[in-house]
């Protein structure tokens, strides 16, 4: 249980810092007497902090679920076409029905994400099983192709700026009360993964073992598909894709604790929340009072961690 304690020990001061840091000064003392400060807290800081925590946790969980589904450590929803297909769906609904309520956009983006991820799963089933590096390569190619389609349509319709937020540099500066609550649904989808944690662990033992234990591997796959797609789509709809969280956090957790998801999922979720929160705070501080998008910060921090993971010796027992 030590990793959990360490993460909670990190998450609490980071949460406090996130509540206090921003262009408008907030002091502990004025919070209850000054209505302006209270307003900033309830409308901006608290929603933002919650949004960061929910996003980080949900993305990390979606990452590990994806990795268990394809039995490969080097994938996450951002590198397998899930994010791009969600963006494609979102782009379609933005063009066809710009006035559609947010939940319609969310549903369309989720369905598109499911279709794109299902396509990826179909593609990799045809790969030779031993060529495990082909899986992330196929994912990158698929997401590249889908991303090119999205970019082309965005360019034609003058929506490129929107797309770069959806896919590249998710950020939280626009989050205020009323504009992040969908993320609770993403967290709900991640929680669903926890209830099915054993099933995902069993699935990663292979289709035969899964069947032998009386589980339908296709049913578990479909559940995973829903979790991954809904989390990704909701994050894209609300704040935009944040890279590397789903990749590095599950890898670090698996190194230390293994892949028994019943035990590791809470740690993975807390780890994702901590990482994104730390990066968001960093993004707010580097050129205060202006902000650097958390996606950009994570692009730098995440790739550094990923390289370290690749070149470090695997830890033993």
């Amino acid at each position, binding site marked *: 249980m030590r990793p959990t304690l360490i993460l909670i020990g990190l998450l609490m001061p980071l949460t406090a810092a996130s509540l206090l840091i921003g262009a408008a000064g907030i002091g502990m003392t004025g919070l209850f007497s000054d209505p302006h400060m209270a307003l900033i807290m309830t409308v901006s800081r608290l929603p933002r902090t919650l949004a960061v925590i929910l996003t980080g946790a949900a993305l990390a969980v979606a990452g590990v679920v994806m990795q268990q589904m394809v039995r490969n450590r080097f994938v996450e929803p951002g590198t397998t076409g899930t994010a791009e297909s969600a963006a494609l769906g979102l782009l379609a609904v933005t063009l066809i029905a710009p006035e559609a309520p947010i939940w319609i956009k969310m549903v369309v983006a989720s369905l598109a994400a499911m279709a794109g991820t299902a396509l990826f799963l179909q593609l990799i089933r045809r790969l030779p099983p031993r060529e495990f590096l082909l899986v992330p390569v196929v994912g990158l190619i698929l997401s590249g192709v889908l991303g090119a389609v999205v970019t082309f349509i965005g360019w034609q319709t003058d929506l490129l700026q929107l797309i770069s937020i959806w896919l590249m540099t998710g950020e939280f500066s626009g989050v205020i009360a009323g504009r992040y609550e969908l993320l609770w649904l993403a967290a709900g989808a991640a929680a669903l993964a926890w209830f099915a944690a054993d099933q995902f662990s069993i699935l990663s*033992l292979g289709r035969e073992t899964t069947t032998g234990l009386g*589980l339908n591997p296709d049913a578990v796959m479909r559940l995973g598909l829903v979790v991954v797609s809904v989390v990704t789509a909701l994050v894209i709809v609300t704040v935009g894709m944040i890279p590397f969280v789903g990749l590095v956090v599950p890898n670090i957790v698996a190194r230390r604790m293994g*892949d028994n998801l019943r035990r590791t999922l809470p740690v993975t979720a807390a780890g994702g929340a901590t990482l994104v929160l730390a990066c968001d705070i960093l993004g707010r501080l580097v050129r205060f009072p202006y902000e650097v998008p958390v996606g950009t910060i994570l692009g730098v921090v995440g790739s550094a961690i990923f390289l370290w993971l690749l070149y470090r010796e695997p830890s033993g027992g």
Partner: protein
Amino acid sequence: MICVEGVSHSIGKTEILHDISVEIPKGKVTALVGPNGAGKSTLLSLIGRLMPLQSGRISVDGADTVQTPSRDLARLMAILSQTNTLGSRLRVRELVAFGRWPHHQGRPTAEDVQQVNDALVALDLIALGDRFLEALSGGQRQRAFIAMALAQGADWLLLDEPLAALDMAFARRIMAQLVTLRAAGRSVVVVVHDINHAAVWADHIVAMKAGRIAAEGPPQAVCTSKVLGDIYGMDLRVTEIDGKPLVLHHL
């Protein structure tokens, strides 16, 4: 009893099994033997419903493997398949514990913990319980997968080449373990590569060749130089030690 009736199976255009009908007796250790590519693993996978049945009918103790819910079958039979590639980092104890999943669906009872422990003891894995599988040797890992199948506690245990990668001490120990299971009222079907493990430990042998049943019966009837020589296409001498046939296939 496992009842296989008129089962054929093709992969692509290649026919792997040709209209197989065979009965595997309950309460016995049955060995499936035959040359490479005879269809042993395919037959075992079909019995264990790991592949969809293309034609014919298979039942285990009267339960049709196509119609019976998979979850019920998982309590009736445990199957260890040959392809145990690791997709994830699990500790030995965690892997073996998943064998109990058909019984508790995620909420293990004291009984489940006990069964897992018994399986670890049976395969001499207690000391390795907290090690990651990937940090084990091939043979140790194989034992962990056997322990998982054992922990499932099903009436029928189907094992596809459990002795692969095991040293001779563990190979013998596992065959002896299977005989103990039979004494406890369980039934075992095991694909073995070395004919002598079948000759010495099995009660019943089903020999396959080129997708057909070539011979079946007790070891004394199947393990003769005539029968085995025809199946494997080689000259074989068979001797007898302690009343059991022993095939001198190395000579």
